[in-house]
């Protein structure tokens, strides 16, 4: 239909200008040697991409990103499920807990990182442990378990309650008769969970779509690890908290200003994000009712 093209013409122009054009420009830059040493870029071919393979910082970032990604997505799913089961149904004071659990949702990623960096939640805890209770113990932020754990916890703090909201929306769509029938036939609450609640959540395309979004968001995560960079060697490359995002952040802030190198890293990662976008669309079209 002709009028349909009239409606979508502005967005096509917009997507071209702010999406396709910059990515194309970035691709061109990634084939040059633009940096503060070479302000007039020369064409160097795929040299930037080749050097990625041998760069230890990239492999370090891949390892850290994987830990962060897998940790957050798994823990968020579990915490969301736990909270959803806890909050499902009607009871007195439900509204109060509902409001409390909504609070983290508006927190920006950078504030999230600040909240869970050592100076906030660990400071008082350590004082209490070490001086207050005289145990001589304290939570050492230099331990991998502690910094990975805290970074993952920071992300779960915001997205766990959101997972809960989505799972509750799914659970509220289950016909009430199913639960009533289970009660009449004398099923235990664990059986109800295993036979009705869990399958409904796991099979939902909405949850699948949400999880793909979490994967892509945490694949490009930088705010939370960035707030930790202050504690673990801030401007040095290749620290154990350098996700791809933080690595590129540090490269951008460094005096070398190796723009072509950053473009090469970002575009290599983009291949992954396209795959995820396709996956998301596959899940989302079911609940959108066709694309």
């Amino acid at each position: 239909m002709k009028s349909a093209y009239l409606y979508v013409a502005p967005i096509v122009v917009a997507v071209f200008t702010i999406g396709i054009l910059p990515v194309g420009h970035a691709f061109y830059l990634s084939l040059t040697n633009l940096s503060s040493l070479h302000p007039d870029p020369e064409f160097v071919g795929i040299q930037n991409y080749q050097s990625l393979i041998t760069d230890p910082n990239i492999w370090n970032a891949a390892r850290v990103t994987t830990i962060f990604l897998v940790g957050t997505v798994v823990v968020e799913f579990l915490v969301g499920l736990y909270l959803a089961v806890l909050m499902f149904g009607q009871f007195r004071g439900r509204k109060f807990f509902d409001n409390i659990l909504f609070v983290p949702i508006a927190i920006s990623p950078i504030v999230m990182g600040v909240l869970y960096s050592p100076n906030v939640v660990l400071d008082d805890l350590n004082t209490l442990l070490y001086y207050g209770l005289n145990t001589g113990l304290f939570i050492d932020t230099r331990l991998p378990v502690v910094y990975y754990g805290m970074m993952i916890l920071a992300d779960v703090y915001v997205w766990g309650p959101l997972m809960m909201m989505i799972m509750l929306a799914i659970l509220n769509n289950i016909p009430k008769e199913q639960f009533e029938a289970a009660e009449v036939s004398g099923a235990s609450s664990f059986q109800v969970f295993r036979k009705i609640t869990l399958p409904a959540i796991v099979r939902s395309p909405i949850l699948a779509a949400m999880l793909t979004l979490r994967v892509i968001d945490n694949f490009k995560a930088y705010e939370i690890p960035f707030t930790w960079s202050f504690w673990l060697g801030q401007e040095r490359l290749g620290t154990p908290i350098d996700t791809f995002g933080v690595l590129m952040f540090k490269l951008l802030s460094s005096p070398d200003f190796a723009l072509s190198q950053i473009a090469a890293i970002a575009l290599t990662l983009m291949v992954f994000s396209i795959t995820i976008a396709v996956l998301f669309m596959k899940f989302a079209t079911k609940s959108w009712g066709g694309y």
Partner: protein
Amino acid sequence: MKLTKLRIFLLCFAAFWIIWPITTMVMEGLRIDIGPLFAGRGSSFVGRFFQPQGGIKPNPITFIKAISFQNYHRAVLNSGIIATISIGLSLLVGIPAAYAFVRHKFKGKGILTLLILMLRTLSPFAVIVPFFIVYGQLQLFDTYIGMGLVYLIINIPIVTLMMRGFFADIPPQIYEAASTSGASEFQTLRRVVIPLVIPGILATIVFAFVATWNEFLFAQFLSGVQVKPVSRGVWSGFAEAIESFRVLDFDELNANSALALVPALTLAFLIKKYVARGFTLGTTR
């Protein structure tokens, strides 16, 4: 399900888990710190003034500093102007597109949807280098227009995909009734459809505003001293100065975080019902 004692305990524990870091943040911002009670009293100088540090007496000095010496209000204004430009433009391009997605079949619909989704999944680092260079040439670096344009990357997917859900919620009979009474498509859109989705548009605006308010990376690299938004001010202070890595002390960091959190939280509570839709890009109804 019954409300057993165990369940009450677990619910209270979850509530405590949510509340504790925020309370600590505000308390640290107020310089309430139990450390010195056990480990001896610390002190610091703010300007020429002696400041006892720690203890349980609240001291609003960091909040006062952020608001009066460091131009918090200017950062809020900057964020507001940037969000207004960006969300206004996104609504102009996003609403007609969302309508077309729901009501029309056309060639290239799948590709366009995928492209819009890819804007959402795009790593900001993939586009920040070109934006950096082009903005330098067009003198858009550190301007409201430039920041508003770059935030389209975030707001166009939000607006289009959220509005698509709201348009899909309107029963098809309404469209049919309007067209049988002889109204043209444009008239139907203006007189019937848009008034029905006004709550949806408002929810979308608020959601996009919170997303823009919270974004950090574009703010960090594409704003300078003139249009520094709040999200950047959290980390490097609301003062009009350029820093890339942190220069604040912890109390300031916490006070700034608290100041940035309050408006976002208030707005998010206004659209509580629609927030899940926004985060799942219109797949939850």
